[in-house]
């Protein structure tokens, strides 16, 4: 700053507009008693596959819905719609090919959903381990997926996703015998980035970890219901 200029203090959060809409979404979720889980991962880690196997495994009359974000195509929505749950596909192309979902995109998607008829809403974020971590959507929890084919060190390369997540799901664990993969190294990297992050090691095809994942979801739903 020079004598010729002066500073006018402001102090606001740059993402205030997003966070305001996220708060509004959160209020709507609470009023409707819906637990919202935001799945975040690289492309191809298995978010859609996880949902394909989670939806039929939901017990006790849990009514679920899904908001799917992709840059283009409705392929994921088509895969999920066969499970007879409401699915809203957001293609971010319309928003300039954005690499993540923002609170306003979720708010728009909610127009197509009857929240009161849902207990659980999954948000399948755009496949990207960087940008979705920065945006609050009003969800109850972010879950970070990491497939073993991505290598052991993704948690320390993309730490924020694993720091803001409340659960890490390690997918495709049945492939480990076919890979030169060091499970302990992956565990140590996760521990380093976020020592308090619970972890489920999972294979959709052997069923390993699926019970633990369903139990985590049930606990989240119970807590969300209490808060709502």
């Amino acid at each position, binding site marked *: 700053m020079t004598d010729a200029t002066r*500073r*006018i203090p402001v102090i606001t959060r740059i993402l205030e507009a997003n966070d305001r809409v996220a708060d509004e979404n959160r209020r709507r979720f609470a009023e409707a008693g819906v637990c919202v889980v935001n799945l975040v991962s690289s492309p191809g880690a298995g978010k859609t596959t996880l949902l394909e196997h989670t939806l039929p495994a939901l017990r006790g009359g849990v009514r679920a819905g899904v908001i799917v974000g992709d840059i283009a195509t409705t392929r994921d929505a088509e895969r999920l719609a066969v499970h007879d749950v409401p699915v809203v596909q957001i293609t971010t192309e319309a928003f300039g090919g954005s690499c993540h979902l923002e609170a306003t995109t979720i708010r728009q998607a909610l127009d197509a959903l009857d929240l009161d008829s849902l207990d659980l809403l999954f948000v399948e974020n755009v496949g990207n381990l960087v940008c979705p971590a920065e945006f609050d959507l009003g969800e109850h929890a972010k879950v970070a997926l990491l497939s073993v084919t991505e290598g052991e060190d993704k948690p320390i390369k993309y730490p924020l996703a694993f720091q803001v997540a409340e659960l890490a799901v390690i997918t495709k664990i049945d492939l480990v015998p076919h890979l030169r993969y060091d499970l302990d190294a992956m565990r140590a990297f996760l521990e380093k980035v976020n020592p308090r992050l619970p972890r489920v090691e999972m294979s959709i095809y052997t069923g390993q970890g699926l019970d633990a994942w369903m139990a985590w979801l049930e606990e989240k739903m119970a807590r969300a219901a209490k808060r709502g």
Partner: protein
Amino acid sequence: MHEASIAQSLLDQVEQVMAGPAFEGVTGRLVRVHVRIGRMTAVVPDVLRFMWAAMVDGTAIEGVALEIEEVPIRARCNGCGEEQEFVDIGFVCGRCGSTDVEITSGRELNLVSLEVES
């Protein structure tokens, strides 16, 4: 490339501030926008600067510079109470070795001030 959305949000905010009470009676030209970006955000300062320049191009505030202050990652140990700076991820208290640490700074993404000609 979420820096584009962040630059857009920033531009919206700057325009709002300039139209609001904080700018009443201000006649000097806006020359610089000051922001604070924590090192624990997924924001690359150079990319944000580039996006900002592209975003303000052709607007009333074309050419206004973006000044980024980077905020280091600091955390307080819940074990021994020591507060320290972390340059690398892997939050282990340098004093007692505990991993139970609370981040106290580094997640900032704030507009701080608008610098105008006086």
